[in-house]
């Protein structure tokens, strides 16, 4: 295929050529970045929580009378007994927060009491001896809390737990050599030492914001009930009895005491709902970017079809002449495909630079990661194929122009 005559012909319709190239360039730049945003959001959502999520649900109970801490503690223990006695419930535990919840309590973790800067930050989960079983999270080293180790405290009391269980990632962060079990760490500002008695498998923190990236899997389980204005109960239903447990558990709690508020709308949430809520924005953003990418590609393809059809119509006579002079249908088809490929290559070259430029700018503005070159390569190939596909129909029509056209005056 000779390229020179194609380039010469392009000079006669510069505007159209530039418009198609520009459209391909802009589409590539935007679609690359949109796909990258989708990928990033999906990667976030695919992270494990470390919790066995099926059959798990959460109840939030607000104490309506803001009663004194001793009464709250008594009520919480009674509530837990009532929940665990339900036939549809396998286990239950009190909680101040839980993985993917979004809000909760995080503390600086230190290795020395007099340390000025923190070693790392971690979620604090107030727990009891049933917490690990309820979450379905396994220990990879050490032991669980015993019932006698579980205390109670108010939000403003200093944490005084002598024993803590920490997550695998936190253990790794504090003691990279893997020797965290049995070590002393400082999990509160009160500078009281806590001994690590157990290390769990992967366990996610409550924090889901992108700022919490480095701490996303740091968690400390503290053996105490938190006596706050409200509490959460984590409840694990027996297999295939989730629906029954969701119905029974709030009833059992109201039977214990009516001076509480369980919000009708979101007072009881399955863990699937918790997960959905945590990643709502990510799903939405991915869908939005997906729709925009698809519509953009469709519009670009339509634009190429439209302009190429116009060119074919404009050049019927020339095509007829070429056919009359011996060019085959394949030659004509090839001509238009090659022409589109040349314009496409010009477009994607500019587009690739633009895509990377936009990404670099977004990195400075929105704490985004760098675009990996794989996306640009995939985008380039996709747009070139799209161009070839779009030009196929008009090009085929061109190849069917009969040599007789050359003899017609119009």
């Amino acid at each position, binding site marked *: 295929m000779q390229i020179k005559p194609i380039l010469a012909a392009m000079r006669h319709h510069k505007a159209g050529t530039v*418009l198609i190239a520009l459209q391909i360039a802009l589409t590539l730049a935007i679609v690359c970045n949109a796909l990258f945003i989708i990928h990033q959001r999906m990667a976030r959502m695919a992270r494990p929580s470390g919790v066995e999520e099926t059959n798990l649900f959460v109840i939030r109970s607000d104490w309506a009378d803001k009663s004194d801490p001793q009464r709250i503690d008594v009520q919480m223990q009674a509530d837990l007994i009532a929940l665990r006695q339900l036939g549809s419930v396998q286990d239950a535990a009190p909680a101040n927060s839980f993985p993917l919840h979004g809000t909760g309590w995080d503390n600086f973790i230190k290795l020395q009491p007099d340390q000025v800067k923190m070693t790392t930050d971690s979620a604090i989960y107030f727990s009891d001896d049933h917490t690990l079983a309820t979450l379905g999270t396994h220990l990879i080293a050490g032991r669980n809390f015993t019932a006698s180790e579980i205390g109670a405290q108010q939000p403003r009391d200093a944490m005084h737990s002598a024993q803590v269980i920490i997550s695998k990632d936190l253990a790794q962060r504090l003691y990279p050599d893997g020797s965290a079990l049995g070590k002393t760490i400082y999990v509160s500002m009160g500078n009281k030492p806590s001994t690590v008695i157990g290390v769990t498998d992967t366990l996610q923190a409550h924090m889901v914001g992108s700022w919490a990236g480095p701490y996303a899997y740091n968690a400390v389980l503290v053996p105490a009930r938190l006596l706050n204005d409200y509490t959460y109960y984590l409840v694990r239903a027996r297999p295939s009895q989730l629906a029954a447990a969701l119905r029974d558990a709030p009833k059992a709690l109201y039977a214990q005491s009516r001076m509480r508020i369980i919000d009708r709308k979101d007072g009881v949430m399955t863990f699937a709902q918790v997960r959905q809520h945590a990643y709502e924005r990510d799903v939405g953003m991915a869908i*939005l970017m997906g729709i925009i990418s698809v519509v953009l590609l469709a*519009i670009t393809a339509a634009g190429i079809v439209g302009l190429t059809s116009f060119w074919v119509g404009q050049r019927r006579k020339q095509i007829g002449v070429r056919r009359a002079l011996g060019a085959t249908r394949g030659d004509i088809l090839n001509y238009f495909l090659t022409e589109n490929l040349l314009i496409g290559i010009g477009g994607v070259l500019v587009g690739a630079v633009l895509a990377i430029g936009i990404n670099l700018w977004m990195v400075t503005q929105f704490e985004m990661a760098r675009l990996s070159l794989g996306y640009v390569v995939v985008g380039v190939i996709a747009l070139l194929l799209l161009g070839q596909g779009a030009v196929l129909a008009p090009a085929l029509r061109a190849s069917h122009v009969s040599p007789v056209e050359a003899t017609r005056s119009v």
Partner: protein
Amino acid sequence: MFAYYLQLGLRSLQRNPVLTALMVMAIGFGVAASMTTYSVFLATSSNPIPQKSSQLYAVQVDNWGPEDSDKGEPPDSLNYTDAMALMAAHRAPRQTALYPVGVSVVPDDQSQLPSPESTYATYGDAFAMFDVPFLHGSGWGAAEDDAHAAVAVISRVLNDKLFRGANSVGRQINLDGRNYRITGVMDSWDPQPLFFDAVNTSGFSDPVQIFIPFTRAVELKMATAGNNNCNRDPGLGWDAWLHSECIWIQYWAELPDRAQAVAYRQYLHGYAAEQQRAGRFRWAPNVRLSNVEQWMDHLKVVPPEAKISLLVALGFLLICLVNTVGLLLAKFMRRAPEIGVRRALGASRKTVYAQFLIEAATVGLAGGALGLLLTGVGVLCVGLVFDPQIARLATLDLSLIALTLLVAVLSTVLAAFYPTWRAAQVQPAWQLKSN
């Protein structure tokens, strides 16, 4: 002539419906994507109290020092000690410390369950400062603040729910088992972003239902329902916490003119210097005074998703326009013979311009109509991407409808300039000769 060109334009659009449909769809999608994301951006970046945003100032005093603060910025909230010192000094015409409290309304009817309501503890000045509208009664005064009085201001919604819309001023409301005398019922009031407590709400939350005196809330040892941050262990008990460096209070001052703002900043600086001399602050005074818009910027209340999607949508519109330029070019140039004949019969370039721009405008109008429809769908779907508190703010109102049509028509006419110019360049002689 305009009507005639319009007629010509419509007829020409009918002549190649596929090309026309392509253009209308491109413009419709482009405009709809831009307008939907713009409505969210507008809602999140709007000024919640435009008439006073330059007179209300959020106060920051660095009580943590460079060691514990973020890049030298003072913390976003105040501790109790500093807030009380500023209240006592009373250097601004109006000022208030405030914090959210978790409060439930206990109904008289024992069979009804208590319901939690969004509540803030403030000083009496807050109502005049924030231009809170009243349906009945008014806020409380300094006397009630000083007396730690059990008074409350409730919202219209709550008044409708509890008192069936009757004037409830002077009646009692039971909050967490304690009675409060109602001094005022607010009319509908829902500033978004919730500027006075953007720290705890990230900017957006449901309307506030109840206000009670700050002094009363502290006397009853009501903890903040928002964030409490400590850099040191506050020690045991309420009093230790109250007098610790833990931060949890928002502080606002109303300063009607520049001179007073400058004077207040000097006062804050002086206060911090005094604390330094007294040995409480071991660092140079570090204070900030930010008006509402500066404060919204500082707290970054516009979610990054709103900015990113607006930018992507604008890029999308740009591509749709490039596409439209190409398609219009094809459409207009196909009619070169027709233009040639019109020019030969005496039409000036100017009339060719008028004819084709009007034709483009009709395309734009059709695209705008489609865009309006899609924007309506888009606004309904905003809840898929954004929190419900933000989604409820994005609405298709009259100004957005007008803007959608305007953007569609203007951008199409703009896109039509180059194709029209090319059409007007057609040489009559050339076209006539080839025929």
